[in-house]
């Protein structure tokens, strides 16, 4: 019997798992995919927003500003990468400058610190590639970027370290309330018993809720965002996150420097019916290119190495919906977590867990260790440090991904780590092999063979990502 089952191992579920592991409780995290952090968490802008944008007096505003500050602690405790970019919101004429003033006021009301204006020449001096017709910018120094799925992995690894159980490939197919607890059915087979359920199921949260509730108090409206990824060579083209003025549809198409030197361009904002249709469209990609000209000039579109799309779990409730079920006690909704969900995630976790502590009289877990050890990123070390590591482990000498300079040891650690994975994309998410210019064209076959060797599987059993996605489908040579 579990005290808590958390449904969904995205940025929200993993933060809740970690926060809850500060208390004495038996906790299980369920994830339907073959890996944690696989929907919104792996396809978003990676921005830790300052909190200038959400409407005043909403949970979004409160938890965004709090979350932004909590990332400072998380950086130290979980050793996650953070790049302090700051951000500019840009205006092009008097009308937009008035809107910028309103945004300034909103940011102040939301409690955003250190905000200021730059005129055209100051802004151009700081960011020479800003579009020439930008007349004024609102500077948000507390805006930063992170590596979203690494944050989710770090939270989950730390939660596991503090006693949480994680089960992947576990889709919740039914929930039945008995007198004192819930029976959670996984993959139409196994039944798990738990006293409480926390649903952090992202775009599928309304469907999960309908397994139990008659009337789910919100509906999820999937809203797709498409992106371009620029190669690391684009680093320095723009150093701040650049926002246009927000509209009803969202924050608009942005320029977003990333922690590893890449730059993201996007997202679009398109409502769609399907929850899992992550397709790029010609129109969407063209829209990004068109919209960006109001933000910057000399955009190095020739350095595009990838496109992707993500789905925001926007809801009819409009604000984050973090409440106990009105029909079933001890079923907790954490839903409608679209932007600024990544930013707010640690604050969402605290907000929810504080309620649970009160309601369930949770006792502190005195053995809680907030530290998730630092991962070795070999290429960032100096020559002497690298030599010392190679002396201990010669596999550091074997460079596997030459675009991103990833060594064999880092790949082996990604396979065997506390949240290890044995798929090509799983290793890419953890060790970044294949994230560069050639997109794995060179290293994929090496990674595949290392996975096979480390997990004692034949190479044709190694999956791209999902459970039945082998890269090699048929042997052609007759074995002697």
């Amino acid at each position, binding site marked *: 019997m579990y005290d808590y089952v958390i449904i969904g191992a995205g940025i929200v579920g993993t933060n809740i798992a970690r926060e809850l592991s500060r208390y004495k409780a038996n906790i299980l995290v369920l994830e339907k995919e073959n890996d944690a952090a696989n929907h919104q968490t792996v396809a978003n802008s990676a921005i830790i927003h300052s909190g200038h944008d959400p409407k005043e007096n909403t949970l979004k505003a409160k938890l965004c500003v709090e979350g932004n500050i909590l990332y400072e602690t998380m950086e130290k405790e979980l050793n996650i990468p953070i790049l302090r970019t700051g951000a500019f919101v840009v205006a092009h004429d008097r009308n937009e400058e008035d809107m910028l003033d309103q945004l300034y006021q909103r940011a102040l009301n939301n409690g955003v610190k250190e905000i200021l204006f730059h005129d055209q020449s100051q802004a151009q001096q700081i960011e020479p590639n800003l579009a020439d017709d930008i007349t004024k910018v609102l500077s948000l120094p507390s805006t930063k970027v992170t590596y979203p799925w690494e944050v989710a992995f770090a939270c989950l690894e730390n939660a596991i370290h503090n006693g949480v159980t994680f089960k992947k490939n576990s889709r919740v197919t039914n929930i039945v309330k008995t007198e004192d607890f819930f029976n959670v059915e996984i993959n139409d087979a196994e039944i798990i018993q738990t006293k409480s359920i926390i649903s952090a199921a992202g775009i599928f949260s309304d469907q999960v809720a309908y397994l139990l509730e008659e009337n789910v108090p919100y509906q999820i409206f999937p809203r797709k965002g498409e992106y*371009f*990824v620029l190669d690391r*060579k684009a680093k320095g083209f723009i150093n701040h996150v650049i926002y246009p003025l927000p509209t009803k549809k969202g924050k608009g198409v942005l320029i977003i420097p990333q922690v590893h030197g890449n730059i993201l361009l996007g997202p679009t904002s398109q409502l769609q019916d399907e929850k*899992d*249709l*992550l*397709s*790029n*469209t*010609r129109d969407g*990609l063209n829209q990004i290119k068109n919209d960006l000209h109001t933000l910057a000039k000399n955009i190095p579109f020739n350095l*595009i*190495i*990838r*496109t*992707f799309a993500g789905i925001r779990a926007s809801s009819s409730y409009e604000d984050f919906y973090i409440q106990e079920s009105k029909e079933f006690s001890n079923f907790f909704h954490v839903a409608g977590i679209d932007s600024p969900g990544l930013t707010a995630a640690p604050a969402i976790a605290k907000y929810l867990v504080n309620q649970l502590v009160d309601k369930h009289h949770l006792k502190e877990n005195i053995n809680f260790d907030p530290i998730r050890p630092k991962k070795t990123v070999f*290429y960032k070390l100096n*020559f002497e440090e*690298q*030599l010392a590591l*190679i*002396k201990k482990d*010669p*596999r550091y*000498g*074997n*460079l596997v991904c*030459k*675009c991103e*300079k990833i060594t*064999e040891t880092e790949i082996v650690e990604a396979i065997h780590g506390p949240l290890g994975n044995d798929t090509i994309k799983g290793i890419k998410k953890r060790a970044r092999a294949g994230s560069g*210019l*050639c*997109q794995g*064209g*060179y290293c*994929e*076959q090496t990674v595949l063979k290392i996975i096979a060797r480390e997990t004692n599987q034949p*190479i*044709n059993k190694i*999956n*791209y*990502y*999902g459970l*039945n*996605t082998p*890269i*090699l*489908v*048929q*042997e*052609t*040579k007759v074995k002697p």
Partner: protein
Amino acid sequence: MKKDLVIIGGGAAGLAAALSANHPNIHILVIEREKSLGGILNQCIHNGFGLHVFKEELTGPEYADRYLEAFLKLNIEFLLDTTVVDVKKTDDFELTVTSYETGLFKINSKAVILSSGCYERTRGSIAIPGERPKGIMPAGSAQRYLNIDGYLVGKRIFILGSGDIGLIMARRMTLEGAKVLGVAEIMPYSNGLTRNIVQCLNDYDIPLYLSHTVTNVIGKERLEQITIQEVDSNFNPIEHTEKIFDVDTLLLSVGLVPDISLFDSLDFKRDPITKSAVVNQFYETSVSGLFICGNALHVHDLVDYVSIESEKAGKSAQNYILNDRKQSNHLHTIKFNENIRYIVPQLIDFEHLEANIDLSFRVSKKMEAAVFKIIQNGTEIMTKRAKNLAPAEMEKMSLKIDKLIDDSPITLLLEEVSL
């Protein structure tokens, strides 16, 4: 470790360069990242190599073997499974090198030949719309899995791009029992050699859809279906021309790019068309002592030309080391008209006119008949007639230095003529 010449990449280009640079007074080191020398030739098990150099048809591994045998006889030092991770230039080059066997170490070298080949353009770089399932990969990766590892990556294949690797793989996968449903090419003409269209597609009844591109990809985890559409002259898809194919694999043969990012830290002049360095007739870049040849300089369609070019680069490096030959300031860019996409070398060093200069170039469009003219100082100093020109086939012309009338810049004109 101190060397006179480090050659980065032990494929067709690196081996040929090593052979010609070899000299009793020059200490050469070849660095190869794979476990064997020969480079991409090792996975090119089809024939058609060597017609120019050896006057016979060899397979890729056979062609590599010819060079390898000669190379091994010379006892030139080489490192396998070794990667160059960093390069700095002061007077000499300082290379940081790593391998499992040796760990990390530094090499100083007077000169460097970069013969690191090219990489394949990917789905991301051409932004194919649709979902992102497993089953979409560069044709060269599929070739490696098939010819080196012995596995097919799929059973029902569509190929985007009519580059030579794509055409070769259409035949190769068919022979292994896969069904290749077609090849789509966005241009109105093929990007591969004519002989490959005939021998790899026509002979196996594989349709080639010219002026078509992939406009949608369907499949959550595994590729299930693709859509191709005809494109107009601006490459925009034309409505109602959709054709749908149920496939498990989409191979991409959409271009190769010289792989020189290792040298990004060195500030040398670049050619935006070849996406590699600007070089003079010695294949030397604007960084003194840095030579580039083979597919790392510009993408070739015939390995024979890689070997010929790389031998010259090797000779130049030898000359640089033994005779301390330095680039002069007397460099002129070779100009050309719009019918030509690029020329290599881009520069001629007029102070060192030692031998006839091989001009390699590609034309911008298909032409049935044309005349090449080399103009200097308003005078036509050389002409050559040519038939059946296509962007897919590299053109060569030797600039005879005894025809030069002075040291003013030269211009290459390509004029289309009627048959």
